[in-house]
């Protein structure tokens, strides 16, 4: 399947783009992260410390083991600092 992968804040800067389309067979967020990290050093660096990364699957906060079957949009970003 093809998913839109989005990046925000310093993840966007390190990876060098705000979004990309990714063809994947990953079953979970964690598997997708492994695939992305293998793409190049920028992805690997941005996703190296997962304790500093939050995830949303189809615009809902999710954890690394969340299934992504059928998902259209998966976003990676730092812990949020609104308000």
């Amino acid at each position, binding site marked *: 399947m093809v998913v839109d992968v989005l990046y925000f*804040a310093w993840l966007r800067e390190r990876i060098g783009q705000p979004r990309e389309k990714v063809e994947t067979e990953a079953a979970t967020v964690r598997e997708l992260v492994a695939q992305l990290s293998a793409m190049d050093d920028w992805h690997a660096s941005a996703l190296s410390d997962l304790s500093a990364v939050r995830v*949303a699957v189809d615009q809902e906060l999710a954890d690394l083991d969340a299934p992504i079957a059928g998902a259209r949009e998966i976003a990676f*970003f730092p812990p949020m*600092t*609104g*308000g």
Partner: protein
Amino acid sequence: MPARVQLDPFDLGTELSGFGTGAGAVVTFTGLVRDEDGRLVALEIEHYPGMTEKALQAFGDKAAERFGLSDWKIIHRHGRLEPGEQIMMVATASRHRAAAFEGAEYLMDWLKSRAPFWKREITPDGPGEWVEAIQSDEDALSRW
């Protein structure tokens, strides 16, 4: 829509006109950009269009149900904001003051660490690091 994300400033008086009609108690919280002793040129706020609005609406609905709010509103700005400018506001209305206060504090605690906003400081040297989440904001959530 009671939840909005926008570039422009808002006027609290205008936003509250007609807000909470019939309620006895209205509480507002407004977040302003501090100047950090002159060190800060501006704050830059990024968000996740689409998810942000959904998340704010969900927080508001949850707060309304939990605290019996008759009305609520959340406005959060994004983009470049200078010292003294408003960052965001929440407003809650209820029959009694305790519920209005609690609802507003609950919304703020959620917003601080669960709404998809990120900010960084721009100083005379240019954009700095993205602001890191602080533990006390995470801790604040545990009381609810």
